[in-house]
């Protein structure tokens, strides 16, 4: 019994250590490489950089319109996430809580959006966005991304709502609260972890999407950050250091946002707030 326990403990810590190494290793490697010169990356790929100079970072900002793209990405990220959470929160609630005709069909249709291959959507979506007059506008990207996040948010939120005991709302209804009031006052507050998780997923989608961002915009005034990365990946480009610096510039904010948001994500409910 004791041997089993020790064995399990070793296994557990070994597993955790492996996961941490696999996650942190690549990130640290890029971080260090972003301070190295080309020659250092090629000859001394594991070691420390000879100096922590920011010249790669300065070059990165010079080569691509990073600051402009940053602002756009923040706008698209925030509003794409809010729009998605609002709409999908409502839809998921209706689908999780009530039975009505056509519900299965609706769920199947929404599931389709999880499956349509991106390459098959490029041209049709360009046509749609152009027809609606949303081409080359941030609002166009916001709507499209809210749509892209539809299935994931729907699944996460539906699944979360199913965990919440029905008694919560029933008592509210008995107290005479309206449908809308119940949703916003009772359901939303206790679904914070669900919304937090869906929100993080949605934000990352908005922050990282590249293919449609380039198809649906033309001017730098409506382009987002992932495009900046490709300024360093031209066919005849060879400067690794600057490329890694640009990668860090793109990654770090999303990591910060995640660290700040994760309290919301996994905070959970105050013990005893919900009695099953």
């Amino acid at each position, binding site marked *: 019994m004791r041997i089993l326990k020790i064995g399990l403990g070793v296994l557990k810590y070994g597993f955790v250590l492996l996961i941490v190494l696999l996650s942190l290793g690549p990130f640290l490697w890029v971080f260090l490489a972003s301070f190295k010169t080309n020659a250092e990356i*090629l000859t001394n790929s594991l070691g420390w950089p000879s100096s922590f100079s920011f010249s790669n970072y300065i070059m990165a900002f010079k080569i691509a319109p990073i600051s402009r793209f940053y602002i756009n990405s923040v706008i698209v990220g925030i509003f794409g996430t809010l729009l998605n959470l609002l709409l999908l929160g409502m839809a998921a609630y209706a689908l*999780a809580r009530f039975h009505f005709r056509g519900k299965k069909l609706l769920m199947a249709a929404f599931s389709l*959006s999880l499956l349509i291959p991106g390459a098959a959507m490029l041209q049709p979506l360009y046509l749609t966005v152009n027809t609606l007059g949303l081409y080359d506008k941030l609002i166009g990207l916001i709507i499209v991304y809210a749509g892209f996040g539809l299935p994931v948010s729907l699944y996460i939120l539906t699944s979360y709502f199913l965990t919440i005991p029905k008694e919560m709302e029933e008592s509210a209804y008995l107290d005479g609260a309206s449908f809308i009031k119940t949703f916003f006052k009772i359901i939303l507050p206790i679904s914070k972890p669900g919304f937090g998780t869906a929100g993080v997923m949605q934000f990352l989608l908005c922050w990282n999407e590249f293919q449609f961002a380039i198809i649906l915009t033309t001017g730098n005034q409506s382009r987002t950050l992932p495009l900046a990365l490709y300024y360093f990946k031209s066919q005849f480009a060879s400067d690794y250091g600057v490329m890694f610096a640009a990668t860090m510039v793109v990654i770090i904010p999303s990591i910060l946002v995640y660290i700040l948001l994760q309290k919301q994500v996994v905070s959970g409910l105050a013990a005893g707030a919900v009695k099953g």
Partner: protein
Amino acid sequence: MVRKNRRYITLFLVPTVALFIVVYAVSLVILFGTSFTEWSAGRKPIFIGLANYIELFTDDSNFRKSFLNTVIWVFLQSTIHVAIGTVFAIILNLKEFYWKFARTVYMFPNIISGAAVGMLFLCLLNPDFGAVNSIVRSFGNADYAQNWFMDYATAFLSVTMTWLPYAAVVTILILAEIAAIPESLFESARIDGASEMKINLYILIPMLRNIIGTCVILAGTSMLQKMDIIMMTTGGGPGNETMNLPIYIYKTALMDNNFGYSNSVGVFLIGFGLIFVLLCRNLFRIGSSHN
């Protein structure tokens, strides 16, 4: 209750239906419609019935290989990947000293865009200066130069390893769900003297049925869209060793300029995905609540 609330249910659903139509409807119609045509950019589609589908199933070894790879990846992702994430969530839920740190760090690779992850692994696994080979060499094997992404022996595995262990999304989904389970459910078991292991196995995991099912669907279907990392690392090679359906669709449409054929592959992919989703929904009885 339903009758009374029908108006509100409609009100809650309409915006999302509208969003769905704007973003997906045109694509779906074009996708299905043109899959029965011969259509390339610059030409009008010509109706050819089932010809695309017949060619697909009878005379296309690249398609068969892509489909096989896709199936393998969907399977691995919906089993091993989800299992890794679940186990890690349960370990983190013990809230030992490292749990916050580990939870944050685990998310890093998922935060980074697929293209950047691809670029990163391409450098880490570079046979010449990559970190992995450098580590092997530092243990004495000075000439070690495994070409991870191009060698037939390792290509498939290398590509798989760029996403299989990174199940942080599963982990946070499950942690959020655990947080919503009332503590009281475990307390009585603890009083009865059940070990943590037993509590996890017999009380916790069954309660996570819905969310694990959701994770299986999300993780599995994400493999039906996986493209950027593969494009960045192997491009589907060597040969068609790491080709999957999304890449095959992309190549037939934009490289061969054969949109009609590409869309018939797209329809096939959707059909396969729907079967997978329905299977999972039934398997995990998703949609029924706990009580």
